[in-house]
Each structure stands twice: as structure tokens, then as C-alpha cells.
């Protein structure tokens, strides 16, 4: 079931589109579910399809098309590390190595306590700050060094996402 918060947000989103084009709100709806639950389960897609009034398969198409929708449970904090050219040249491998050292996980993995997950990301359009990662697709962290990563992880430990 979609929570009250999610349906309120979807309702608000639906107002942006003509009444006969409700499916325009599907991307936002998927995002709201992911923000609340961390990932999007097939059951959530069924609920979204029913709520918006579109085929389940069409929701699935959108959810699988975009990389930033998590279709599997992931950590409470998902670090999406950019591995594209600029970041790579500026040391994204070092970022990954350091994260592996600190958290014991690599790309596509989740820590056993479910707190952290690491995903591979594409260019975030801010190469001036390379290398970089995002936290839960929301917060962009750039010019990463081992010290800075330690600081960010310590902040996350302290609950400041």
C-alpha cells in the first residue's frame, strides 16, 4: 500500500498534468516511493499503476529504464560513485578503494548491517569537482579525498545525511 504521505505527494504531482495524461506523474511517484522505502518493489509498482491508472507493465518499463531507481533493497545510505572519464582521471578508483577499505563493500554491494550500499553512477555533470559521489541521489559530494570521505562517513554515522 502506498502511504498517506506518498499519495498526497502524487496528488500534488498529478495537478501538474492534464487529467487525461495522469501517467506523466509516474516518474515522480516512483521517486516518492524510493525516498520513503529506499527501493521500489514490484508491489509498489502495482500500487502506483492502480493509483495513477496505467498498465503495470508501463510502470515497470519506466522503473527499469532509469538507473537511479533502485529495484533491489539497498543500504540506508546509497553512495553512487561516478566512474565516468573525468572522475576516473581524477581518481574514482581511489574513492572506490577507500570505500572498500572502510566499508568492506564494492560496487553493487550492501553492507551486512544494511547501512551502506555502493552503486556505479554516470556523469553527474559537475566534473569540475571530480571525483565525486552522491548520497541517496540527493546530496552531491565532490573533490573526494580519503580524509573527506572519512569525514562524510563520520557525519553519516552521526546521522547527518
Amino acid at each position, binding site marked *: 500500500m502506498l502511504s498517506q504521505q506518498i499519495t498526497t505527494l502524487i496528488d500534488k504531482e498529478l495537478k501538474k498534468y492534464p487529467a487525461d495524461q495522469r501517467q506523466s506523474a509516474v516518474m515522480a511517484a516512483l521517486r516518492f516511493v524510493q525516498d520513503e522505502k529506499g527501493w521500489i518493489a*514490484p508491489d509498489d509498482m502495482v500500487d502506483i499503476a492502480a493509483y495513477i491508472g496505467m*498498465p*503495470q*507493465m508501463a510502470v515497470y518499463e519506466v522503473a527499469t529504464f532509469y538507473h537511479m531507481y533502485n529495484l533491489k533493497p539497498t543500504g540506508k545510505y546509497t553512495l553512487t560513485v561516478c566512474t565516468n572519464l573525468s572522475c576516473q582521471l581524477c581518481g574514482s578508483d581511489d574513492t572506490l578503494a577507500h570505500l572498500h577499505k572502510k566499508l568492506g563493500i564494492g560496487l553493487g554491494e550492501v553492507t551486512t548491517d544494511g547501512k551502506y550500499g555502493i552503486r556505479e553512477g554516470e556523469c553527474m555533470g559537475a566534473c569540475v569537482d571530480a571525483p565525486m559521489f552522491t548520497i541517496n541521489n540527493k546530496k552531491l559530494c565532490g573533490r573526494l579525498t580519503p580524509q573527506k570521505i572519512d569525514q562524510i562517513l563520520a557525519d553519516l554515522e552521526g546521522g547527518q545525511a
Partner: protein
Amino acid sequence: MINIEIDGKQIQTENGATVMEAAQQAGITIPHLCYHKKLSIAGNCRMCMVQVEKAPKPLPACATPVVEGMKVFTHSEQAVKAQQGVMEFLLVNHPLDCPICDQGGECMLQDISVGYGGVHSRYHEEKRVVLGKDIGPLVAAEEMSRCINCTRCVRFGQEIAGQMELGQAFRGEHAEIMSFVSGTVNSELSGNMIDLCPVGALTSKPFRYKARSWELSRRRSISAHDSLGSGLAVHTMNNRVLRVLPIENDDINECWLSDKDRFAYEGLNSAERLTTPMIKQDGKWQEVEWQVALEYATNGLRHIANGMGAEQIGALATAYSTLEELYLLQKFMRGIGSQNVDFRLRQSDFSVDGKQQGAPWLGMPIADISKADRLLIVGSFLRKDHPLLAARIRQAVKKGAQANIIHSTDDDLLMKVANKAIVAPDALVEVLMQVSKALAVEKQGQSASGEAASIAKSLASGERVVVLLGNFAQQHPQAAQLQALAQQIAALCKGKFGFLGEAANSVGAYLAQVTPGAKGLNAASMLATPRKVYVLLNVEAELDCANPQQAIAAMQAADLVIAMSAYKNHAMEYADVLLPIAPFTETSGTFISTEGRVQSFKGAVKPQGEARPAWKVLRVLGNLLKLDGFDQDTSEAVRDEAMNGVDVAAKLNNAIDGVEVQAAPSASGLQRVSEVPIYATDAVVRRSAPLQATADAAPPRAWLHSDELKKLGLQAGESVKISQGQGSVKLLAAADDKLPKGVARIAAGHAATAALGAMFGTITVERA
């Protein structure tokens, strides 16, 4: 009209047409894979690249609109180079497993690659692998690596079938066609995806690895499984039907077939086929020679006719039989002096007999339904009873027509329904009366409120109104009144009204006079006042009759039951003679479709075993009894005799007079609402294993509104006892809140509910 030039040929075409359409009109072939004339344009395979003068690069013909003076070259160096380039890319990930692929020999990709593909591939890396999927018992999606992602199947689901069951998930190199969370494809039109798939990704599961396309012989036939009269190409090998494909006809089935028409053939090769004549002696069945069986039957008939009178003999037939068979059956019965012959086995109201001016039919050509702008569909399980008509109406609705529904269930029609009135069966007449009244009021410029008024308003605003009565309305105990009201409503909005015929030959059976006339007994009275002898033609009494309880009792009480059947069915328990007859693929014959189209066909294969076409059997029966006029040598001679002096167009008439319309007092207790499930309509379909494995063939349940369940202290999913008349059955209860209150929806025509009584009426549901 605008003028363009393709390959130097001057062509006049409509403004707004695409280059592809213009080329096809002119008979110029442009290679294509994703383009299909009945589907929306996707433009994703890029195979149809052509050179257009003044365009800097090749353009896709399917997605390029024509403009005045355009010059197109489909075989220029630039065009061919582009086409070859696209083909090379298409083949990069294609497994090229043509030697073991079912599509081999009839594959668009294979054909086009012969023209545009290279001899060698420049691609030496690993090919993409897409895992196979199980999407149900009809469509095989085992080798999805063959898929070229043209999305024809997806577009078919969205646009024609009305439900998007397949989609293209993931992206780029990872894109694959799949169903949502490994679900099955349950559309009643799913088989068309097999035809549409231009490669071997979606193939027919029942036909898989049975034969190569070039080994098959093709015979034209007509579908026996619904009243549309769809054209079939029956593909045979070694005297067996191995598959069935559509024959295109835009006025009937377009290029589609319903799954029922396409996969029913599996029932033809069922192990239950009756292949030798049998008689029952001392309670035991014995296989005998034809001569023995026929003499046994005729002796019995002669004995009863002489002893107790010919009116003790009754004949029942189903309208899945051919015109020739039906005609000879009634001729035979009338020859031995009995008027008791009928095919309307599921009908319960015969008060229309004598008041009906002609044979009930669709009331218009099928193609006219596409042109309707307002429809009122009364009492029809539209999608399941008439899958392709439903698809046609769906297209009309997409173009702006308004569909109004009056029915006792509210199944999803997968189209926009403008207004609907969902009421218990005993209130149908009342609702139609209200609509009719509201229409009259509407004519005076006033308007009322309520569902009936909304329907009336919708109808009144139309220019081409169509009122259709479905199977449920025809089987309804007040069918005559429903017909009279439909006639009235259609007249008020200057529209047409008609019947969605139940079976392949529902119209033909009327024209062949398989009705009792004034002196005979109709199907219901023949069973209500049991006869001593029954002659059955393609009848499974416990499944095909309105009241199976009564039908079985009558059969068991009879002295002699002569069953002409293609199958060893339940008749083994009550019949005395079983005569093996040929189903429609094994005999020549004629069906008259619901639009009155007379279509004859030849047998596709020889009859199995000792089975013989029923018209021959009836002819010999006539000879043995020394009846006049049983000397036809061919089925064509029978047809010509049956149709001699029959002006089909003049005989088709839905008009009735003198039917008193009166709302019935509402019944007390739970009322039964029953449909004949889509894959339980006739003997062949009932034995098609792949169709019986689909979701639509799931065992029937007792569907009630959840409030009704609560009132009865029951829960969905628990086993309940359903009683009607003297019989009862156990089914699982299920909740459907779209049903009206006070009804229980329990399917008929199914072995699980054959112990119950009439399709309509009071029924009790209690904890088992």
C-alpha cells in the same frame, strides 16, 4: 490528394499518408520489420530507410509523411547502403539459429536478410543473451535472444488487445521484451503476437517443433467457434491439422484471430475422439460396423415412430454444426413425421417464436460497427463471447464512439465505457424501459437523471447508433421483451439493432429451419416434457443446454438416444448409439455468420478413423428409412437444396411485433448469473489442452459481492455448496464488488457446474 514520385513512378496519395503507405499502394516494396499497417508507428527498426531528394540523409519510410512533389528512391545507392547497414546491425545480436527456429521459412528477418544482409559478419564479439520467459501456454517466448525489439507485440497489446501485458523493460543493450514480474499473457487475442513477431522470438507453443512451414499444406476454412465467421488458413501435414492462422479480410476478422479460433484445433486431435460407431448392448459399449449402428438406430426410430408416434422423437443440435448437417437433420426429422427439432439449446424464452419476422442477426454488416458513434450493448460478456468484435468496438471507442453497457456483471472491457447500468438479471427489462422512456423525454428537449438517463442522453446525441443484444440477453428468461425494447430504443434514435450471434451458424440454423415451427416442441419443452427418443447432433447435453439437470434427466429417461458426436463424451452414460461424425475441419460445409455472410469451406483433412461427415450420416439414415429427398451426392448439393429460393438478405430480420413488455417483479433470494466461459463453448474448444491451460479456463468459482458473502457468513476462498433444483455442487467462493447485490455469478457450460439447473433463476449458496 498530393503527387509524389517513388522510384520514378508517379503516385497520387492522400495528404497525411506516409512514404511507406504510398509505396504499398503503388505496389513498391520497402523492407520493414517494426512497421505494421494496423499498429501505431514506432520507427525503431530503421529497416525502411529510403533516399528522399533534398534530404541530407536517408529517412525511415514508415515515419516520413509525404509532401507535394516529393521524390523518393527505395533502391538508390544511398538507400540500399542504409538498408544494408541497418541489417548488419540487426544481425549483430541475432543468434542466426534459423535451422532450429520455428519461424524459419516464414521469417521477415530471414527474408530481408537474404536481400540486404552480408554473407559474412564483421562482428566477432560475443552476442547478447536474453533469457527465455514463460508467458503462458499459448505463446512461446523461450528464445528472446532472437528478439529485435521492434515492439510490435507491445503495441498490439496496447492498441488492439487493450491491455499492455508485454513491455520493453530496461534500456539500450539491456532492453528486453517481458511481462510484468513474470506474469502470463492472458489476453484472449494473445496469439496474434505470434503472427506479428517478425522473427522467431514469439512462436506458437502448441505448434513448436511440430513441422517446418514449407512442409504444411494450407486449406481455407471458416472458424466454427464464434459467430464472426473468421477466415482460417488450416495448415495440415500427414492428414492432421497442425496449426491455424488467420486469412485476412478487413470486413470480418481484419488480420487477427482470437486465441479460441487459433488454438482450438488442438482439440481435433484429442484422444477422446470417437472414431468408430458404437452401440450399447446390455449396458456395455461395443464397437460395431457403420451398417450395424445405422440399422440399430433406424430400427429404434421406426419402432418408436410406429408404436408411440413420431412426436415422441426429438432432435437437438448445436449451431456449431454446418448448414448442410442442420438442414438434413430437420429434413430427416420432418421426414419421419416429427417437428421437434431445435438448436437454441441455451435459450430459455421462446415466446418470440411466431412473432419474429425473420432470422435474428447482427442487424448490420460487421464493418458497420466500426463506423458507429454510439453503442448500447445489452447483456453481453463481450470480450469473452466475441473477442474480435470487442476489439473492433474498442477501435471505434478510441476514435470517439461512446460505448454504453447494460449487463449483470461488470468485467473490464479494456475500453472506455461511457455509461453503464449493472443490475441483477431480473432488473434488465426495467432498465431498458427506463432508457427507452428517458429517450422519449430527451426527444422533447428535457433531461432526466440517473444511469438510464445518461445512457439515453449518450444515445440521443449520436448519428449512427447501434444497439446490440449479447448472448446473456438472448438466453435471458425475458429475451423477447429485451428484444422488443432494444428494437424500440434503436427506433427512437434512428439506429440499428441486432444480435451478437452465439455460434458459427446461429443464423444458418434459422435459415435451415432447425426450429420446431408451430406444431413442434422447442428445445426447452423437448427436455421439460421428456421424449422417448433423442437424436443429438454435436450436442453435449450436460454442457450445451440451458438446464443441464433437466437435460440429463431427460436423456437418462429416454428409451433411445442417438448421439452424433465427434467425441466420446458424457453421452456414453445415457446414449444407446454413438455415431462418429467429423468436426468442421474434416468435412465440407457452410457457415452463415452473424452478419449473414454465407461462407462455404472444404474439408482440410480426411475424417479420423471411421468418422464420417454428419451430412452423409444423415443422408444414409434417410435412405434406410426410405425417406424422400435423401439422394444428395455432395455437401454442395445439400447446400444448394437448403438455400434454394432462400434470399438470405430478405430472411435476415430482427423485427418483432406483439411482445408485451412488463417489468418482472424482483425475485427473492440470490439470482444466478451465468456465462459460458470462453473456452467452454463447444466440444472442440473444450478438448484443446493449451486453451484449457489458460487463465480463462480456470475452474469456475462462485462470485458474489463481498457484502453478500458477509451476509451469508462466508469468506472469499472458502468452499461453498451451491444448490439449484435437485442438484448441488461445491465451488470456491470469490468476491467481486463490481457485481450487483443479490446475484451469484456461476459459470455454465462447464463440467464443474453441470449438476446445477437453469442458467438463470434462484440459487442458494451456503457453507459446504
